[in-house]
């Protein structure tokens, strides 16, 4: 996987500065306080998981980062820049791509068109062809289905398409919302394998996941959210051994 788009300036971060830093962020959702002051740091190259029960604020956190939900208070810094008030349309240009919950592919566009739209801001033909070759290498199934409409793919294939589409923008930070939701276990394992490949190529990954075992197994660090607050944070391997986590999220 080739990463870092040639036309986008690479992040010049001071030594030890996080790629993404959110501090005391509060978000409300139709009168309900969904995030009650969460803080997180993600270093460049890391794979970070966000886990927690339904309604804990995992999806809200990602939507907030992609600027799909307004921030009530707090700071959001990406590559050292304040992105709190940047519109969604510009977030991808800054190097952050979200794979939304439920995949949100374009069902009546072909697989190829879906992928091309991922490169909407980087239309350079050569770069696009290179990236597309990388995506097809990552998900060979997509290569076989290029001319099919996205809506005709299976759930797992749609998830591959959604991730591939996000990768077409060659993001520095990939945000994944529930990539295994509603997908056959075998395909989910394949998708997580692809996520690890993406991470190895140098892309920073933040993944929200219901499947706690899978999330902790493929991430380096994790945040545990509980009713809109960070309840626990730490190294994934350590959290996986935590009796409290095992009881609450790993089924004993």
């Amino acid at each position, binding site marked *: 996987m080739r990463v870092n788009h040639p036309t986008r300036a690479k992040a010049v971060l001071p030594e030890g500065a996080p790629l993404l830093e959110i501090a005391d962020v509060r978000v409300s959702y139709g009168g309900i306080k969904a995030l009650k002051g969460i803080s997180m740091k993600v270093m460049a190259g890391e794979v970070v998981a966000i886990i927690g029960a339904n309604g804990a604020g995992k999806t809200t956190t990602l939507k907030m980062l*992609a600027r*799909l939900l307004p921030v009530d208070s707090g700071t959001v810094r990406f590559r050292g820049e304040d992105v709190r008030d940047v*519109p*969604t*349309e*510009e*977030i*991808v*240009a800054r190097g952050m*791509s*979200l794979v*939304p919950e*439920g995949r*949100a*592919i*374009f*069902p*009546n*566009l072909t697989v190829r*068109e879906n992928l*091309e*739209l*991922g490169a*909407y*801001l980087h*239309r350079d033909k050569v770069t696009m062809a290179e990236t597309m070759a990388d995506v097809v290498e990552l998900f060979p199934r997509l290569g076989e289905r290029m001319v099919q409409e996205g*809506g005709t793919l299976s*759930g797992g294939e*749609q998830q591959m398409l959604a991730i591939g*589409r996000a990768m077409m*923008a060659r993001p520095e930070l990939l945000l994944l919302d529930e990539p295994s939701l*509603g997908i056959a276990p075998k395909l989910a394992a394949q998708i997580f394998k692809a996520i690890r490949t993406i991470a190895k190529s140098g892309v920073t990954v933040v993944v929200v996941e219901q499947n706690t075992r899978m999330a902790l197994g493929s991430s380096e660090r994790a945040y545990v959210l509980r009713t809109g607050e960070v309840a626990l944070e730490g190294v994934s391997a350590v959290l996986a051994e935590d009796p409290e986590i095992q009881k609450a999220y790993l089924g004993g």
Partner: protein
Amino acid sequence: MVAVPDNQAAGASRARLLRLGAMALGLLLFIYVARSVGPQKLGETLVTGLTQGAMIALVALGYTMVYGVLKLINFAHSEVFMMGAYVGVFVLGAIGIANPLLSFVCTIVVAIIGSSLLGITVERIAYRPLRGRGRGALVRVTPLVTALGVSVLLQNAAQLFFSARYRSYPQLITGSMDIPGVGPVGKSRVIILVVAVLVMIGLELIVKKTWFGKAMRALSSNEEAARLMGVRTSWVISSTFALGSSLAAVGAVLFCIDQSSVYPTMGTAIGTRAFVAAVLGGIGSIPGAMLGGLLLGVLGELVKLSSYSGSIDAPVFVVLIAVLLVRPAGLLGSNRAEKV
């Protein structure tokens, strides 16, 4: 979980059966009509019907594209069509028809510019401030009522400024030509049909091949995802209004060549039929609007062959209702449920 594909398969085969049935029925009807009127008359009817249909389709495309990106029925579209016709008549009045081809091209170009500006302005002033405002049903209903209001406003503005009288349109293209197998057909008809088809081919290329077209289809498919790709919603919406209004302007100039009169309420007549065509073909579907328009045009002319002498709109609506009963999403509309 296992039942889902079975259901889908059953639904698909039932739909195929229905489609075959409808086609067979249509073919039988067509053969019946063809036998009763003879090939000569039938050819003439078909050419006239396709001409009418092509103009309806041009206007229908505007409804369907705006619906695609905004999920709004832009009732003001018929008035953009009417204004396009007025721009055309004024341009022709100013430059004369010494050189018919040049006049024709100039008229179309100026009408396109005028209508696009009007379409963009209507969106900026009337619809954009309402976008994303309100709660629940109001998100959709408020712009809809606004669209009706803009339609009434524009129609009355035309009456106020241009007066309610019928203005005659100069005869740009006269004479007829022989088409093998059909016989003599008015030259204007042929030109209308050719121009309309060329415009639709051009549209298909824009929609399929350009980044604007891809952005537009992405936006109608899933707005949030389109924004995540970096698509600027406002820009795409404005461009869609411009494109839809341009097609209406072409339709308007062609309509005037065919009917040779311009009046403030002319938008309502063709607008209603174009809207029906868009719904018939599946609102939001571009090929659907083309198909719907052509079908309505031919249908209207076929009805004229019969002894029925009432309003042409009655059989048109009967067909619409019949189609919607069988295919609620229209002929080519997508009724695929979203996978969650």
